[in-house]
C-alpha cells in the first residue's frame, strides 16, 4: 500500500523521496551493510567495467522485441485497411480487433467528458482496453504500441549523439506539469465540449497518418521531435503526454512490473542512463533500496532498456505470481 502510494506520487510528478531508516526491511538493511563491507565488490565492479570496454555494448534484446511488436501492431492497422484484411480496423484512438470494440483510454475519456454521454459500444471498448492494459502494465502501451514513442526513440539517439559532441544540452522540465496538463485537457474537454487534446495528440495524428495517409498535422509531430532533439530529451513522453499519465494510473495496479534485485546490483547506474523515466529507478542508487526485491513504479513503460543495460541482471520484467519473464 505504501509502495503504491509512493509509485502514484512519483507518477504525478513528485520527486522520489530518500528513504528514512524506518523504511528499510531488516533484510535490506543487512544487505546494504554486507555490500558496504564487501570491498571485493568494488574490484569486481572495476573488472566488469573493464570487460565491458572490450566487449562493447550488450545487445538490446528487449528493444528489438519491442520495436518488432510496435511495428507489427501499427502494420496490422495499416494492412487491415489497405489490404482489407479487417483484423484491426480503425486507428489507435478507437478500433475493432476481429470485431471486438477497443477504445484508447485517453481518447475515450476526452469523448466522454466532451459529449457527456457514453454509448454502450464505447463503454465496451474502453473496459476491454482497460483490462488489457491493466494486465500488461499500463504504460506498456507507450513503449510497445505508440508510434510516436518509436520516432521519439530515434530522436533521442540523435539527441544523445549531439550531446556527446557538446552541440546540444538537455533541458529538463518540472515533471508535475504533466499532471497539470492532464487536468487542464480534461477540464477543457468538459467545458468546451471539444476533444481539445486530440488536436495535438501525436499518437492519434501518427496513427491516422499511417493508416489514412499523411497530412499537414505531421508538421506538429516533426516540431515535437525537433524540440526533443535540440532542446529537451524525450520531452513529450516524459513531461507532457496525458495519454501516458492515464495509462500510468492503470499500470499502478498492474501485475506486470520491472523488478529490482538488490543482491546483484553494483549501483553503477547504467539503467538510469537509458531510462525514459529515470525517477522510477531511484532505488538502484546505493543505499536507497528499502527491500531486497522491489517493483519499479507506475511511470515505467516496461520498455526493457534497463533490463538490457544492466550488466549484472539486477532488473527483470516480471509477472506477479508468475516469476521472471524469459530473458
Amino acid at each position, binding site marked *: 500500500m505504501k509502495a503504491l502510494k509512493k509509485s502514484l506520487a512519483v507518477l504525478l510528478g513528485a520527486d522520489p523521496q530518500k528513504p528514512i531508516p524506518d523504511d528499510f526491511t531488516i533484510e535490506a538493511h543487512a544487505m546494504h551493510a554486507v555490500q558496504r563491507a564487501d570491498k571485493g565488490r568494488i574490484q569486481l565492479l572495476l573488472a566488469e567495467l573493464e570487460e565491458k570496454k572490450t566487449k562493447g555494448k550488450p545487445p538490446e534484446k528487449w528493444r528489438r522485441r519491442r520495436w518488432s511488436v510496435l511495428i507489427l501492431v501499427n502494420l496490422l492497422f495499416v494492412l487491415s485497411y489497405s489490404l482489407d484484411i479487417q483484423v484491426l480496423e480503425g486507428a489507435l484512438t478507437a478500433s475493432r480487433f476481429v470485431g471486438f470494440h477497443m477504445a484508447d483510454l485517453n*481518447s475515450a475519456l476526452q469523448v466522454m467528458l466532451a459529449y457527456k454521454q457514453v454509448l454502450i*459500444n464505447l463503454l465496451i471498448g474502453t473496459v476491454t482496453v482497460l483490462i488489457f492494459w491493466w494486465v500488461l502494465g499500463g504504460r506498456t502501451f507507450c513503449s510497445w504500441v505508440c508510434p510516436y514513442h518509436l520516432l521519439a526513440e530515434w530522436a533521442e539517439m540523435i539527441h544523445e549523439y549531439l550531446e556527446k559532441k557538446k552541440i546540444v544540452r538537455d533541458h529538463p522540465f518540472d515533471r508535475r506539469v504533466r499532471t497539470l496538463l492532464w487536468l487542464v485537457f480534461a477540464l477543457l474537454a468538459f467545458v468546451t465540449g471539444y476533444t481539445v487534446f486530440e488536436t495535438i495528440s501525436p499518437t492519434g495524428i501518427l496513427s491516422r497518418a499511417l493508416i489514412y495517409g499523411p497530412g499537414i498535422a505531421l508538421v506538429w509531430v516533426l516540431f515535437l521531435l525537433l524540440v526533443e532533439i535540440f532542446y529537451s530529451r524525450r520531452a513529450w513522453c516524459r513531461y*507532457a503526454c496525458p495519454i501516458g499519465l492515464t495509462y500510468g494510473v492503470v499500470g499502478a495496479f498492474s501485475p506486470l512490473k520491472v523488478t529490482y534485485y538488490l543482491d546483484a546490483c553494483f549501483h553503477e547506474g547504467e539503467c538510469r542512463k537509458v531510462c525514459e523515466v529515470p525517477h522510477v529507478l531511484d532505488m538502484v542508487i546505493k543505499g536507497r533500496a528499502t527491500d531486497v526485491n522491489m517493483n519499479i513504479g507506475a511511470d515505467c513503460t516496461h520498455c526493457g532498456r534497463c533490463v538490457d543495460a544492466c550488466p549484472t541482471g539486477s532488473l527483470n520484467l516480471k509477472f506477479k505470481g508468475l516469476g521472471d519473464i524469459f530473458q
Partner: protein
Amino acid sequence: MTAKRARKPRSRRNFLRTAVMGIGVIGSALLGYLPVLGSAKRRIRPPGALDEHEFLASCIKCGQCVQVCPVEAIKLADIDEGFAIGTPYIETRNQACDFSCDGLQCVLACPTGALTHAINYSHETEMGWARVVRPDLCLAAQGLRFKGQARGPAFEGLLRYAEIDRWNPIRVSEYDYDLEVCDLCVRQCPIEIRRAQCDAGKPPSGDTNQCPPKPAISLESDAAGRLLPVIHDGCVGCGVCEMICPVEPAVLVMDWDRSAGVTA
C-alpha cells in the same frame, strides 16, 4: 549556503521553462478553436452525423467509418480544421455517398454514436441539402441532350449501377449515357431510385421500410419554360446529383444546413 544560492536560479529557470512549455502545449491545442469558431468551412458529414458541436464532441477520430464505405466517400479532416482534426467528411463533387452499402455501414461502424445509431435507412439521413446555384449552366434548361461519360474519362468517382452490378459500385467513367434531355441528377438520385423500385413493387432487399416516403428531386419547368432540377423535402444531401452533374462547375451544390436550401 553557497550551494543553495547557486541552486535557486536554476530552479527558477526550470520553473519558467516548464511554464512556457505548459502554456505552449495548451495554447497550441486551443488554436484548434479558431477553425471551428468561424462556420465558413462547414463540411458535409457522413450519414447520421449529430449536430456539428455534438458531432465534434462525440467523434473519437478513428476513421472506422472511412474503412467500411464501399465507395470511399469519407475523408478525414487535417489539423487545419482544428478541433475537427480526424473527423470524417464527404466531398460530394469528388465522391458522393450513394448509399450503395444499403445498410448505412458507416453508422454501424461508429463506436461512439457520433453517427447516430438511431437511423437505419438512407432516407432518414440529413447530411445536407442540394441547391441549384447555376441554373444557366444546366443542360436540361438549355434543352440539350447528353451523350458519353458523365464526368469524362479521368473522373475516379464511383457509383452503383444496380442493373450492372448490384453489389459492386463501378467508376462513373465506365458508364456511357445517351440521354435525349440530360436528367442525370434525377436519374441517379439514390432516393429517387429507391422510390422507383418501390413504385414498381420491388423495394430494396424486399424491405418496404427502405422506401423513401418523400421525393427528393425532379425536373420541372420554371416560369420561363426552362426545365430545371427542383429539390424536394426528401433530399438528404448525399451529393450524388452534384457528383454526376456533367457541367463544370456543377449546377448543384450541397449545403450543410437544410434551412439554407430552397424548398418546393
